């Protein structure tokens, strides 16, 4: 990793009519960094990435990729980037090798270099022996790795992955991320969007994005630490709904939400929740099972950040 920023985004805005999809988004990504945009569907992640690839024109603000302006030098930008979208846009009626040849042609990779890169992509994606299968017959994980191969045939300096792991089994996702890390070690700058929290953990740095706004940015560890302003408790209780309603009234409780079959409750530090809470809940006809201090996950951080934004200051009272 060197420190020269590979992607610079400055107050980027995208409006669709009255709807503001991306609102004053700014960030910088260093070469070789894996940067994640984490947010729910419709939060503006894909719109941001599409502007950076020159697929959409920004409404205002600016962005450069490898020093090139994405709005004015879109064609030059495309020489240096690889883009893989949520649908792994391959041609299902072409064979694996034909897809590679086709994208190689589009990127202007020719001759012996193309042969080498195709051989590399086949090996990387584990498709050896299946090159002649129609792409439509390949499983999700293979298709995904093939799409990655197509996107990086021309050795781009920057790789954009837009929800590139959606609909792929967990094992394939792990393999995919190993490939991503390998490219990052070779100096490729990688911008990913995802709504999988576990995937976000693979990133060097993250920006949490909600309703077009970046609500938090930093390393996964830092985000987890700063987002939760207190101690996080796991509370098993029944009934779950009644417990949630009651716990929000308890003294010292900042936030509470349902996580699976239990509650995650944030309390102000310095209190004694392990003793106070069970008593409070029991008084409200809620039976309490296990209760313990846990370390926050990214999901906790995300819920805490977006929840507090959505609800305003009320949740703190």
């Amino acid at each position: 990793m060197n420190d020269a920023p590979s992607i610079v985004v400055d107050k980027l805005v995208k409006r669709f009519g009255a709807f503001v999809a991306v609102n004053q988004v700014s960030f910088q990504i260093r070469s070789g960094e894996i940067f994640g945009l984490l947010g729910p569907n419709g939060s503006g992640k894909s719109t941001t990435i599409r502007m950076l690839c020159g697929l959409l024109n920004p409404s205002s603000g600016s962005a450069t990729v490898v020093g090139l302006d994405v709005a004015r030098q879109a064609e030059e930008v495309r020489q240096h980037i690889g883009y893989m979208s949520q649908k792994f846009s391959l041609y299902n009626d072409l064979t694996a090798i034909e897809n590679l040849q086709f994208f190689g042609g589009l990127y202007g990779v020719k001759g012996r270099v193309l042969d080498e890169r195709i051989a590399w992509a086949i090996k990387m994606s584990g498709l050896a022996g299946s090159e002649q299968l129609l792409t439509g017959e390949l499983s999700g994980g293979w298709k995904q790795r093939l799409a990655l191969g197509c996107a990086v045939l021309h050795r781009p300096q920057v790789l954009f992955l837009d929800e590139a792991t959606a609909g792929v089994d967990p094992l394939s996702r792990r393999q995919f991320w190993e490939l991503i890390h390998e490219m990052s070690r070779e100096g490729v700058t990688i911008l990913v969007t995802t709504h999988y929290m576990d995937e976000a953990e693979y990133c060097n740095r993250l920006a949490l994005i909600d309703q077009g706004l970046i609500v938090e940015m930093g390393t996964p560890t830092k985000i987890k630490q700063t987002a939760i302003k207190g101690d996080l408790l796991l509370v098993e209780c029944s009934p779950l709904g009644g417990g949630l309603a009651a716990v929000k009234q308890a003294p010292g409780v900042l936030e509470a939400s349902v996580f699976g079959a239990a509650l995650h409750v944030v309390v102000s530090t310095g209190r004694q929740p392990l003793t106070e809470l069970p008593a409070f809940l029991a008084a409200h006809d809620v039976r309490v099972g296990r209760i313990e201090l846990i370390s926050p996950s990214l999901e906790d951080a995300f819920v805490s950040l977006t929840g507090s934004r959505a609800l305003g200051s009320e949740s703190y009272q």
Partner: protein
Amino acid sequence: MSRKEFTQVRRDPYSLVVVLFLPLVQILLLGYGARLDANHIPVYVLDQEGSQDSQALLKAFQASPYFDVIKAVDNYHALVRAIDADQCKLGIVIPWNFSERLDDAGRTSVQAIVDGTDDNSAQLAEGYAQAVVATYANNVQLDWFARHGLSQQATIPLSVDYRTWFNEDLESKNFIIPGTVALVMALMGALLSSLTIAREWERGTMEQLIATPVTALEIMVGKLVPYLGIGLADAILCAVFAVGWFGVPFRGGLGAFFLATTLFLIVILGIGYMISVATKSQLGASQYALLVTLLPTSMLSGFAFPIDQMPAPIRAITYLVYSRYYVSALKRIFLSSAGISDLVPEVVAMIIYALVIGFFATRAFHKSLQ
């Protein structure tokens, strides 16, 4: 790009049908179905006289390849019923005083009742019937002159000798089939090219394509070149079929044929491509494409309905219909021995069209998601 497009056509059963079978089906259907001439028109006769003269006239009808005298009836009602029941298209009534009046006055008439439900056939039947009667009348006249010792004058002072050039047998298939090549080209070209961009949008591959450095022009040319090749191959297929199967003459130059076809395909493919860019959906695109290519080509190109016989306003519109120039060129290439130099107006018109369409087509598509 082109190779990929070609491979996709090869792999897509629907495209293959469009490319291979549609032309054949079309040319067969039109070659057999859309004949405008009538042979073996079924005829009933009512001979009220039954004389030598009346029989001679009926023999003339029997001898004509255009008529099949199926039955002789003995009253007028039976004849009318037969026409009503669609058992015959033409009824010939020879009056009871036919030969008497022929001898006495030298003038007589026969009645022809024509089933007018099909206007075209009716006109043809009427025309052929008049021709048969006129020939017969001529012979009678000559005969009369001869019998009255006027053999010196036994020539009709004036007669018209018809000689039809280029379609000597006046067979409508020779007139129709060259035009079907245009119809096939329009149908095939429009269908395939209208799908090409829309398909990329629908399958989500367009986004990927836009994100690569490939230019809009490369996309267009890459996508249309295979279809141009396929179109030319189909044109050859149609021409071979027209000549080999239907016996349509091919007298003009191959160069002119390929030039005209190439220009026409550029226009058709350009239109299909622009529609595809504009609609982004395969279904919508193919429907629009058929509307703007097939309809004018079949109705206003002179393919089946002669432009000369159209009302003036519509005739004026046909000058804007690109297919008219191709159909006209095709007919002349097939039937007269037209080479490129004989087809300058058509070729120039098509070049202008190709340039205009090409100009707009290259500007139609922008590499952007908006």
